Structure formats: C-alpha cells, structure tokens
C-alpha cells in the first residue's frame, strides 16, 4: 500500500468542513485527512469541535458544507449512520454499546446473525464458531459463548472492536477508550490498536490523556475553538507541544510537583486496622493537616471501597478511626458534620443530580445551613451557590441552570464546590478528572493545591499516574485490598507506583 501514490494512501479526506448548530458555528473550514493504517489522534479541549467532526464523519449529524471523500469516493452531505457503517467506519463508543445478557458471539454478530439457509432462524452453532474464529485470528483471550456481563471493561472493549472488525471496518474511531481502564488494561488496548494498524486498519483516536496520544499516534490533528490549529507528524509530537497548541498557552508542569512533601502538622485522620471482608484488610494510615495523600493501585484494589467506608457509605467489619483526636464512627451524617466531603468516582451516578439546578445541588448536603425548622431558604441556598460558583469558577455562573447541562469539568466543579462552602477538614476525591478536559483538569489540581495550603487534608484516589504523582505529598499503594507500599519522600516516579500496584516490588517479590 505504501508504494502507491500519495492520494491512494489517504483513506479519509475532509476539506473545508463547516458546521453550525442553529446559530453558533462550531467548525470553521476544518481540513482533516487520515491515511490507511495510521493511528491518528484528534485532540482539543472540550468545545474545540472534536465530537462535532467525528459525528459528521460517522453520519450522526450532517455538515453544512465542505467535501468528504472516503476511499476515493465522494461522501454526500446527507450521509447517515448506516451509510457510514457501510463505508466501513466503525465507532467504539465512550459509553460501551454492548448488549448485556448476551454472549460475545451474539454481540459481535448483532443484526448480522448467520441464518440457516432459506429460513428465518439463527444458526447459533455457526455464529459461535465464526465468532471464535475472529477472536482467535486476533489472538484475544475470549470465548465466543462468554456472557458480556462476566467480562472486564477492557475485555468488553475488545468485543466492541471485534464487532467493528466483523463489519469489515477500515476505520475504527475510538472516543476516550481508556477513560474507564486501568493502566494495565490500557496497555492491552494499545496492543490491540497496534494490531489493527498492522492489519492496515486506520484508527482515529480521541483522548484527553496526552501520554497516550504521544505514545500511540502517527499523526495528531489539533483543534481549537472550531479551527484546525495544526497537524503534527510523528517526530514533532510531544505532550507539551500538543497542550500548548490545544490551549494556546503553556501549562507549567514543573518537576517540583513530583517531590513528596513531608509535613509536620498534627494528624487529622488516624485509621487503625480497618477491614471489610472482600474489600480491604487491616488498613492503617495517618493523615496530617493540609496533607495530600494519594491512593494508588489498580482498579479493584480496594481504594474506592476504602474511601467509601471512611465516608460512612459502606459498613466496616473491624478497626478504629480517629478524626481530629476523637473517636469517629463512619457514617455519612457523621462525616458531613465533621467536615469531611466526598467527590465520588462516578459523577453522573453518584455526584450530581442532573435535573436539579446548581443551587439545589450545592444546597442538598448543606441543608443544615440553608434550612430552619425544616424549611429551606431559597435566598440562603442561592448565596451558598454563588459562593461555590465563585470559588470554583463554575461556567456558566448561573445558579439556576440544571447541573446536567454543564460540561463534565464544570459538573465536577459543582461537586467539589458543594463541600468547599462548609468548614471542610478533609476532602476525599475519587478519580477527580475522569472525562474532563485539560483546562478543567488543571483547575481541579489548583483547587486541591489551594485547599491543601489552606490546611484542608485531601485524599486522592486516581488511576491517572501523572495526576497522582503530581498532586500527592505522600502515596499509599493498595493491592488486593492491602497497603502494599508507601512512598513518603524523595521523587516518586509513575513507574514505581505502577510496579507496586501490579505486585512487582523491588527484589522480584510478587
């Protein structure tokens, strides 16, 4: 393929794409081209126009004008999702689009089931056999008859990719595929991506995680505010450069952040021998005032379970907790009354009430402040909301807007903001920057740093290793529910945390 003329190398070519949604224009004369068998990343802050461009390519929405050719054939403006699928464009969605309760084979062959000749009856045996052939051809560790529900997130993604391959995809679009994967699972996904590339399949990769973009991409297209800013070739790609182009300014990512800071302030939280069967065992940790403690480990290591127990959501079997020198029985009411706040892992499910306004969301955990004799004061609620909006720089700064209408980053700001207006002593954040853009991410980091210097202790749970090392004064790594390693001083590397989390400690111990 490489020997052919350069225009034969191009699989997808978009020229001067314009798009406006009933008014504001979101794409301006965007050019985008993708070669056969290349891994091409599309990056940009939220609102830069990435998803709009992808939606146009996949036929979810129609462009206003501009030309698209795919495989040398002109794609009409009115091209639908079905048309895109027929062309060979497949999308691996951020929210996995598999059918639960069905087998791997059923999912791979959904709507394309092999039938008994001439009968409207599905040939299940043949379907399973064909599915297994595809799985084996790519060397995945899956059985065609496995039920989707029993698979890990990474395995499910594999099934999605197989589904795309089965529909003869020549372009696979991945939108934030690693957002719910652990580092190990991401590594597995990358291998799959390389395999696709080796098979001559193009991959359009969208991610907020710069290291991934940096490692994977053959080329990177950067969008900003609806304009194509740059296309970087492999040798020109560096995370700093991409970020600079994306946001139009340089973020300081100085090495100082990676140095553990030893604090000598008094202890705020003391946990002794905390255990919860099946989740975590014999957890002992102490947290100082103003200290940022990072909890590292793989998904399933018990980090989320531990912070949930500390906040009093799930019961514990044994152990004691002391908070501010006094014995503390974890319960949500107790936690809030003591000045502990939680920013939970799954924002949409646990953090926000999407239909309720910003003011309402902020008011709910602060009812003790906003209400009297059981009646809620709307004015008081608005006042608190205004304070939180200012503190967190929520955009738009309108307390009446339903939180569900905000961007992911701003939703997260509301979740944090509702705790900040209290007399906060300890803030627990669980995967605080999943699915939010790089600017909002940076603001989140600054908020945590600001809280820490104001004397608030913070526990950060994160699978994003650069994030963990950057934020934490001290890192504790959990593995299989137990504390396996503590990094308290010196410079901490991501590799060291990952090695501990994966059970590879110094000295070859597993």
């Amino acid at each position: 393929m490489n020997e052919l003329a350069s225009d034969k190398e191009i699989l997808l070519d978009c020229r001067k794409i314009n798009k406006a949604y009933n008014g504001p224009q979101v794409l301006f004369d965007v050019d985008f081209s993708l070669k056969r068998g290349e891994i091409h990343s599309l990056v940009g802050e939220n609102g830069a126009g990435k998803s709009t461009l992808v939606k146009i390519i996949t036929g979810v929405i129609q462009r206003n004008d501009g030309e698209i050719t795919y495989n040398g054939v002109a794609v009409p403006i009115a091209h639908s999702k079905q048309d895109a699928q027929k062309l060979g464009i497949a999308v691996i969605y951020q929210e996995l689009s598999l059918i639960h309760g069905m087998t791997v084979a059923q999912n791979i062959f959904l709507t394309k089931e092999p039938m008994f000749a001439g009968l409207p009856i599905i040939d299940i045996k043949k379907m399973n056999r064909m599915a297994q052939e595809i799985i084996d051809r790519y060397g995945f560790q899956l059985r065609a008859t496995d039920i989707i529900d029993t698979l890990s997130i990474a395995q499910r993604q594999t099934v999605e990719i197989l589904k795309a391959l089965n529909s003869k995809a020549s372009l696979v679009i991945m939108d934030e595929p690693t957002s719910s994967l652990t580092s190990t699972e991401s590594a597995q996904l990358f291998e799959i991506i390389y395999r696709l590339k080796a098979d001559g399949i193009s991959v359009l990769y969208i991610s907020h995680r710069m290291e991934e973009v940096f490692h994977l991409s053959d080329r990177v297209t950067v969008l900003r505010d609806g304009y194509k800013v740059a296309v970087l070739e492999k040798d020109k790609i560096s995370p700093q450069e991409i970020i600079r182009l994306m946001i139009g300014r340089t973020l300081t990512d100085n090495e100082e952040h990676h140095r553990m800071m030893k604090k000598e302030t008094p202890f705020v939280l003391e946990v002794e021998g905390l255990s919860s069967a099946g989740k975590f065992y014999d957890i002992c940790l102490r947290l100082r005032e103003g200290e940022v403690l990072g909890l590292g480990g793989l998904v399933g290591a018990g980090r989320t379970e531990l912070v949930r127990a500390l906040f009093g959501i799930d019961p514990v079997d044994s152990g004691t907790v002391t908070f501010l020198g006094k014995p503390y029985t974890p319960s949500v009411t107790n936690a809030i009354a003591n000045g502990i706040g939680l920013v939970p892992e799954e924002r949409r499910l646990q953090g926000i009430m999407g239909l309720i306004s910003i003011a309402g969301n902020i008011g709910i955990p602060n009812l003790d402040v906003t209400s009297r004799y059981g009646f809620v004061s709307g004015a008081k609620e608005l006042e608190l909301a205004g304070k939180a909006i200012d503190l967190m720089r929520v955009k738009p700064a309108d307390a009446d807007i339903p939180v569900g209408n905000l961007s992911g980053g701003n939703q997260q700001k509301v979740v944090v903001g509702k705790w900040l207006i209290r007399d906060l002593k300890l803030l627990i954040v669980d995967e605080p920057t999943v699915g939010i853009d790089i600017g909002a991410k940076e603001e989140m980091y600054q908020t945590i740093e600001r809280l820490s210097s104001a004397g608030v202790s913070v526990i950060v749970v994160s699978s994003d290793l650069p994030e963990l090392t950057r934020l934490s004064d001290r890192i504790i790594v959990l593995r299989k529910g137990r504390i396996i390693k503590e990094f308290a001083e010196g410079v901490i590397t991501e590799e060291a945390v990952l090695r501990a989390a994966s059970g590879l400690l110094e000295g070859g111990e597993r």
Partner: protein
Amino acid sequence: MSTSALRRLILIGLLVAIGIALEFMNPAFGTLDNLTTLLQDAAQVGIVGVGFTMILITAGIDMSIGAVIAVTGMICVNFLSYTHLSPFVFIPIALAGGALIGMINGFFITRFKLPEFIVTLAMRGILAGLALIIAVKDEMGFVQNVFIQDERYLSFGGSVGPLYIVTIVFFLLAALVQFFLRRTKAGTNVYASGANPIAARLSGINVDKTIVGVYMFSGFCAALASVFLSARMMTAMPEFGIGSEMDVIAAVVIGGTPFTGGVGDVWGTVIGAIFLALIKNGILKLGISPYIQPIAIGLIIIVVVMLDVWYKGFAAKSARRTAIRKRSGGADTLAR
C-alpha cells in the same frame, strides 16, 4: 449450571412438593378433573403473561392488559348480539382490535417518548370506560348480562382429550414465542432493545419498531385470553379482566423475568403461571377463605423478588472476585 437454570429447577421442585403436599391434605386435589382446571386457570393468566414477558424484556410495562380483556369481551358480545357473523370471522377482528390498542400504546411510547407506565395506565382507564360504553344494554340503559349461546363460540371453552383448548393454545403460543425470542433476528432485537436501547440503535436495530411490535403482541395476547375467558364463562361483563394485571405480573415475576429489561424467557412464565394457579387452587382445596388469595399472591411476589435480589447480589460478588483474580493475574505480566 447457569443461575437461571438453577432457579427454574428450584421452582419446579417447589411446584411438585406443594402439589404432593396438597394431595396428602386433600385427595380431591390430584383428580384429573382438578388438574385440568388448574392448567386451564394457568393458561388463562399465562397467555397474557407471554405477551407481558416480552414487554418486560424490553424494559417496559403494560398496565392496559386487563382492560383489553374487558373491551375485547364487549366487542365479541356485541358481534354475538347484533350480527350473525360467524365467530371465526369476528374473533380475528377482536384479536386485531387488541393488537391495535397495543399499537396505540407503542405509538405514544415511541413517538412522544412518554413513560410506558403512564401511557398504558391511561389506556387502561380509557378502555375500562369504553367497555362500559359499548356493553350491551337493556331498554333501561343498564348493562345487560349476555348469555352466549353460539355453539361455535362456546367451543373455544371446550377441551381436546384431557386438556382444555386454552391450555393447548397456551403451550403452543409459549413454545412459539420462546423460539421466536431465541432463534430469530426479531427476537434478538427484543432483548437488545431492552438491555441497551442506545447500543441497539447504534447496531442498526429499529428499536421503536421493536417496541411497537411488542406492545401489539401484548394487546393481541390479552384479547386472545379474553375470548377464552368469555367462552369458558359463557358470558362477558365489562369488568372481566380489570385488575387481572396483578396475576399476570405475579406469574411473570415468579417465572424469573425481572423488570430491568434485557433478560427473561417464556418458559419461566409458563412455570410461574402454573405455580400461581397451584397456590390459588390449593387455597380453595384446603378450604381456606378465597379472600386470602390476593394476600398470598402479594406475599409470594415479595418473597420471590427478595430472593432474586439477594441471589443477584451474591452472584455479583462472586463475579467481582473472579474478575479481580483474573485482572491482577494479567497485571503481573504487563506492568512495565
């Protein structure tokens, strides 16, 4: 053995155990006559349950089924009273009427994205009123109790060998629908639409069409049950079937089809319907007040759902443990 197979086995075991116990307490239970009646009762609920199972698989609900039974009864009685059409002509019309009602339900649910519960509950109210309006009246305007005399119509309440026609139709319908669900594309679409409508749409499935179809089938099933009911009772009244949703839901839930969508099958509903009929029959055969029936059914629903929830939690826990084991096993080799 899969969890659903195990659940089914336990249910069948329980069914047999209760049957044997009843036989010991009252020998009249085990007579052929009683058992055929029991199966007739089961079929009466079960036919509606087959349609309802499909509705639940799509994560919907149909509260109008009881009222469809009432209206269909009134349609048939009108044909019998005012026309000389053969039942073999007007029964298909009545069944199409049931499907049409389902189509209207489905239309509002898919076209205007209205909640299934509200649409079908409103439909229930409308149909219950409609049944009274179209009921055959006497000169004074009171609802008349029509006694059905048409032999051909009444033959639907008859039996072939030891089984009532309704029982045979129920088993055939169940087998057919089970095959449809498991072995055809349209059946796969039903599961997919319930398990994850967005994913189904992205896979090119016409989810709306599937949903409309499922509600049509539910209406059809209810209408079919209505014909057998009036043939058995030799009359139809505008309140026939109203409130029977309770029994149908009980049968389907006992059978193991959850309300969450994407799962369930018809065999479970067959067993659930027989189980329900057995409990009702047992209460009668033990000489306990029949007023206990709805209380017993209510309690059974709660116990069954409680066991299901408990078991699901248990299964999820063990699945998580396996997943953690697998994952950390893989992690060792890939960390770098």
